[in-house]
């Protein structure tokens, strides 16, 4: 395993990828430090170390935060590999969430041992459906997926509000009804293992997803086709690959992953989270974009970058011990995240540096 990892790191292209991600994260952190120094110079240094390191004392929380954004990161990254920019993970996530809550509230006839699993699957199916629509539009009507997925985000959001208000309304608390206890994703002892925080089987599901997506992309004919379409649509067509099917399927899988993320957010905790009638697109949906960018769309990279962001957000929570306004903390964490997402910039820079020192293929 270790030998394989070392082999992975020592391959040029991987070395470039990993080092550019690390460099991007470091510059993101430095940028965050600058904001801290400007807003609160006296406490900036201890606060800086708090935001980076305090998360390590609270692994459970970090994993809880990371679980959905691993999935949305995979959602965005998988679409990237096929040449599609899925900005619609947020909407797919919301639709997945409402499907999960609906099943959790209404389908009480299910045996309690599989109730949560069905709710989770329902979320995946709903997300997949929501991803399929822009996929179809892109493949058969050439509607740009960025435009279509943004529209679908808002359609999804208002659909969710409608469902909460007219189908699943809890009059007393002015929010969605509480799901049955059997619909909550079980802990299987993970909460005890990692301490504070709601680490449940959802985290394992996100790990399994990472593995499955990795296998699909690198080991299967299906992944070979999808990447070929992503790299060069014309050559794929020439080779007889049905590139339209590929686009739709990629969006279906992308949506499925985002939908699952919705379930892991809303079916977690003692009684699950509730959807408000004034709900907005949850931030985990958009976090998938920087997660995928920092991880350079590689499933393992996405796993690490999601954990990094989890660490950062939990660190931000502890920063409240210092004299920072909560809004400033939000600004700092999101600056770090988005600055880190400039990894592509660093990759170009490192490739240039590498080429300068080590030019392999010289054209005459």
């Amino acid at each position, binding site marked *: 395993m270790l030998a394989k990892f070392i082999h992975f790191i020592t391959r040029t292209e991987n070395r470039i990828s990993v080092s550019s991600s690390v460099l991007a994260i470091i510059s993101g952190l430095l940028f965050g430090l600058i904001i801290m120094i400007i807003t609160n110079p006296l406490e900036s240094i201890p606060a800086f170390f708090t935001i980076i390191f305090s998360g390590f004392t609270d692994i459970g929380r970090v994993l809880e935060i990371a679980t959905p954004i691993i999935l949305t990161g995979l959602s965005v990254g998988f679409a990237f590999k096929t040449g599609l920019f899925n900005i619609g993970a947020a909407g797919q996530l919301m639709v997945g969430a409402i499907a999960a809550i609906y099943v959790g509230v209404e389908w009480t006839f299910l045996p309690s041992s599989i109730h949560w699993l069905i709710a989770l699957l329902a979320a995946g199916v709903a997300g997949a459906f929501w991803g399929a629509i822009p996929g179809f539009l892109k493949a058969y009507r050439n509607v740009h997926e960025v435009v279509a997925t943004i529209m679908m985000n808002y359609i999804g959001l208002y659909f969710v509000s409608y469902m909460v208000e007219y189908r699943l309304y809890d009059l007393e608390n002015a929010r969605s009804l509480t799901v049955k206890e059997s619909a909550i994703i079980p802990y299987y002892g993970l909460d005890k293992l990692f301490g504070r925080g709601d680490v449940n089987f959802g985290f394992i599901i996100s790990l399994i997803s990472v593995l499955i997506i990795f296998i699909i992309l690198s*080991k*299967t*004919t*299906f992944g*070979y*086709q999808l*990447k*070929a379409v992503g*790299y*060069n649509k*014309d*050559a*794929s*067509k*020439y*080779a*007889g*690959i049905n590139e339209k099917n590929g686009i739709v399927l990629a969006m279906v899988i992308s949506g499925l992953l985002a939908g699952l993320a919705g379930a892991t957010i809303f079916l977690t905790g003692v009684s699950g989270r509730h959807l408000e009638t004034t709900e907005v697109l949850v931030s985990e949906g958009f976090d998938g974009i920087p997660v995928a960018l920092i991880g350079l769309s590689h499933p393992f990279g996405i796993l690490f970058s999601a954990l990094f962001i989890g660490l950062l957000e939990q660190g931000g929570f502890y920063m409240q011990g210092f004299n920072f306004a909560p809004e400033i903390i939000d600004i700092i964490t999101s600056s770090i995240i988005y600055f880190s997402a400039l990894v592509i910039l660093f990759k170009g820079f490192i490739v240039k540096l590498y080429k300068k*020192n*080590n*030019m*392999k*293929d*010289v*054209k*005459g």
Partner: protein
Amino acid sequence: MEHVIEMLNITKEFPGVKANDNVTLQIKRGEIHALLGENGAGKSTLMSILFGLYQPDNGIIKVNGETVKISNPNDANDLGIGMVHQHFKLVHNFTVAENIVLGQEETKKGLLHLDEAIEKILYLSNRYKLKVNPNSYIQDISVGMQQRVEILKMLYRDAEILIFDEPTAVLTPQEIEELMKIMKEFAAEGKSIILITHKLNEIKNVADRCTVLRKGRGIGTVNVDDVSLETMAEMMVGRKVTFKVNKKAPRMGDEVFRVENLYLQSANSERMQLNNINFNVRRGEIVCIAGIEGNGQTELIKTITGLTPHKKGKLFLEGKEITHYSIRKKTMAGIGHIPEDRHKHGLVLDYNLAENLILQTYFEPQFQKFGFLKFSSIYTNARALIEEYDIRCGKGPYSIVRSMSGGNQQKAIIAREMDREPDLLIAVQPTRGLDVGAIEYIHKQLLSHRDNGKAVLLVSLELDEVMNVSDRILVMYEGELVANVLPEETNENELGLYMAGSKRGEVHVS
């Protein structure tokens, strides 16, 4: 002061490769100096050094006798050095004039002022008979015209030393002739021209002297008039080269492929892009479709292979109608296709060589099981093809195709297409942009395919190739077949007349 440019003992090393090894190049005023070498010989590196894109590790550059340091293209411009790159650097939705002034815009009160520029462009255009309209948009003009815009760009900046990087690779025979005339005119005026090329005929036609590079080293500089084509070719590749294709008499068999009454209407007008096309190809036969670029050859091949859908007309392979087969079904039925644009259609440049070699067959049991790729057989397959077709690349089957040279990319496609042993091999301009060695190789492969009793359909713009390789020639003009002739019963002159539409022959399915 005899030389305008002297590059003395230039050495440029990249790790693992000496791109230039003690190369000396001296250009006289008013001469056309050819820089000859195979792909990878170091021509582009040398010119990139002269143009300020790279710094030499060793050696000096003198312009007009004075040692200079050229650290970027702006320095080169200031020294009067201009370059027409192989891939034009033009903004497509800008006009000709806007492209030419780009970077040197004149403004009045902060607004772009083009009038004087247009006047200067018109003056230059008329003086050298370039026939460029400064107000046309780049996207609307032909490739040949775009090249002249690049030339005007250099003239507009008062360049005295003009570098042309493979200028004829994208031109039709007529355009090539005109370009040669323009170059000679420049030279007569005292401008110096460096012509980077690997086409010997062109050198013979226009160049005064020629410097030959091979594997990064300068082999020598010769007066073009004193040496034969064969000598230059030998200097370039380091061995004897045969220009005549060694061709056995064809042993023709049954019909393999037939096109019947094929029509194709253009998407946004009434014009017919293909007008009642009928022809066939037999076993053991190379049928060549000749014609000037843009007369429907591309559309014909795309229609046959299924890349462009069509409504009217029928296609038969081995007597079976395949008109409405999908692309994959056609491929599997026995059509191989070496596409015109190898980067756009032929290869996934970011995949490695092994992955590219299974582009149409990855789903076959040989390469997958239950949807999982069988990497060991994929790489075994690649190694075998690399060996058999002599594909040269740094990391073997793991080489990313983008990093391979054009000739080896083309070899990869040929290996992939021929290895399936298709009954009909379609090759569209398979030798475009390749050097003599690679061309020789590709012609041999096409002939061996035909000698194995398969059919070959070749589309070519090069008359030499048409005459040398084919067993039968069809000429296309404005979407129609206007001639069906045998190479031994015609000549280049007659073919030229067919291609220009001034003569029509009898076309019938033989």
